[in-house]
Every structure is written in C-alpha cells, then in structure tokens.
C-alpha cells in the first residue's frame, strides 16, 4: 500500500523547515530529499512573479502526480506545496519533499515530481518588472517537456 501524499496550493509562504521536520518523524525514514524552487531576481529587473493557477484542478493534478510517485517508489511520506499569486524575488515558489528508507527512492521521486509539476500542473507565470511594466507570460521550455521522457 502506497502512502497518501500531502498537497497544498496556497498563496502564503512555505515553512520549509516545518515540512522537512514533519517528514522525518517516522522512525523508518532514512532520508528526506527536498527541492525548493525560488523566484530569481533576473539581474534585479524583476519586481515579482505573478502565478496564475486553475483552482481545483491545480490541487487535483498535483495529487495525481504525487500519487503516481508514491506508487512507483517506496516512499514513507511525500509533500508538495505550490504557491500562487505575487511572489517576490528570493521567495520560494514550490516545495517538493520525499522521505524514504533509502536515499535513491527519495531522490528519484523528488525529481519525477518536479519534472511533472513543471509541465502538468496548471500554473502560469507572468513577470512584473521593476520599472512598473507587466511583462509577458513566461513561455514554456521545450526541455521541460523532454524531461518527462526519461520517466516512461
């Protein structure tokens, strides 16, 4: 029986320390891998990233991806938190955390989750620039699609 991953889609900050500590609680956990994605400053040009999302589907789709990871690797716990709304440079956008008895499963599951979140979770980024203008919607990267191929 695979574990039930925890998913949260929220506008507020992510408490990375609390999540990591929570995942390590079980006595069987040998390793916790976390990935935290941050808003880059783009050489100081960026005032904020705006993340639009599809409420309802965002939670469901991340849940589906996380469930797949839990079925594919022997995870003891998994947590995904994705923010929406305005995010300032230096702030975290997304956190993926996977706990397992041995490290390989946690590493692979965290990479799998990130690869799928990037191209399957319904979020769209738009740049707000320091000069007050609203930049265009960020274009999806071709490499994010090809990143999925190694998991087939």
């Amino acid at each position, binding site marked *: 029986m695979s574990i039930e991953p925890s998913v949260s889609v929220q506008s507020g900050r992510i408490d990375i320390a609390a999540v990591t500590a929570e995942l390590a609680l079980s006595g069987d956990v040998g390793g916790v891998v976390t990935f935290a994605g941050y808003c880059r400053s783009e050489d100081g040009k960026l005032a904020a990233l705006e993340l639009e999302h599809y409420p309802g*589907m965002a939670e469901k789709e991340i849940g589906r991806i996380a469930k797949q990871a839990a079925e594919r690797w022997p995870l003891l716990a998994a947590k995904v938190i994705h923010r929406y709304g305005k995010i300032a440079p230096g702030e975290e956008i997304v956190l993926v955390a996977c706990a397992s008895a041995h490290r390989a499963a946690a590493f692979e599951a965290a990479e799998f989750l990130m690869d799928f979140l990037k191209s399957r*979770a*319904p979020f*769209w980024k*738009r740049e707000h620039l320091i000069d007050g203008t609203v930049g265009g919607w960020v274009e*999806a990267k071709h490499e994010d699609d090809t990143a999925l191929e190694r998991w087939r």
Partner: protein
Amino acid sequence: MKLVYFAWIKDRIGLAEEEVELPAGIITVKDLLRWLRGRGAHYEAALQAPEVIRVAIDQEHADHSDPISGAREIALFPPMTGG
C-alpha cells in the same frame, strides 16, 4: 457548458469564463476550438494556433481528439509554466 480560460488565452478573449450553448455537431475538443474561433476577432487571436492550446475536461488533461459530451467544465490554457 462552462468554459474557463487562463493566462494569455484569458487576456486575448477578454473573459475568465463563460457559459455556452454548443450547436449540434461539436463532438471533440478540436470541434470546440474551431467553433470558438468563429465567434469573433478576440477568439481568433486567442486560438489562432490551436496546436499549442492545452485543454482540461472537468479538471483533467485532455487531448484535442477527446469527446466533450457530458463535460461540465472545459478549460483552455497555454502550456504550463509552474514549478
């Protein structure tokens, strides 16, 4: 049927969502996209490259060849850029 739009598709159509009554003969997602393009310049600007449009039927990813019969909510959006 409820249609919802995101990111630049929403910007170009000028609506976040709308209720539509589909005429007969709209079977697949592809049919829906073709019909929407005929509804005016805003829709044409949003959907002129249908191959890049991603679609969700009742909040699950769908292909352009999928049937839409029975759907309550269909979402149109550009490729995702979260994570």
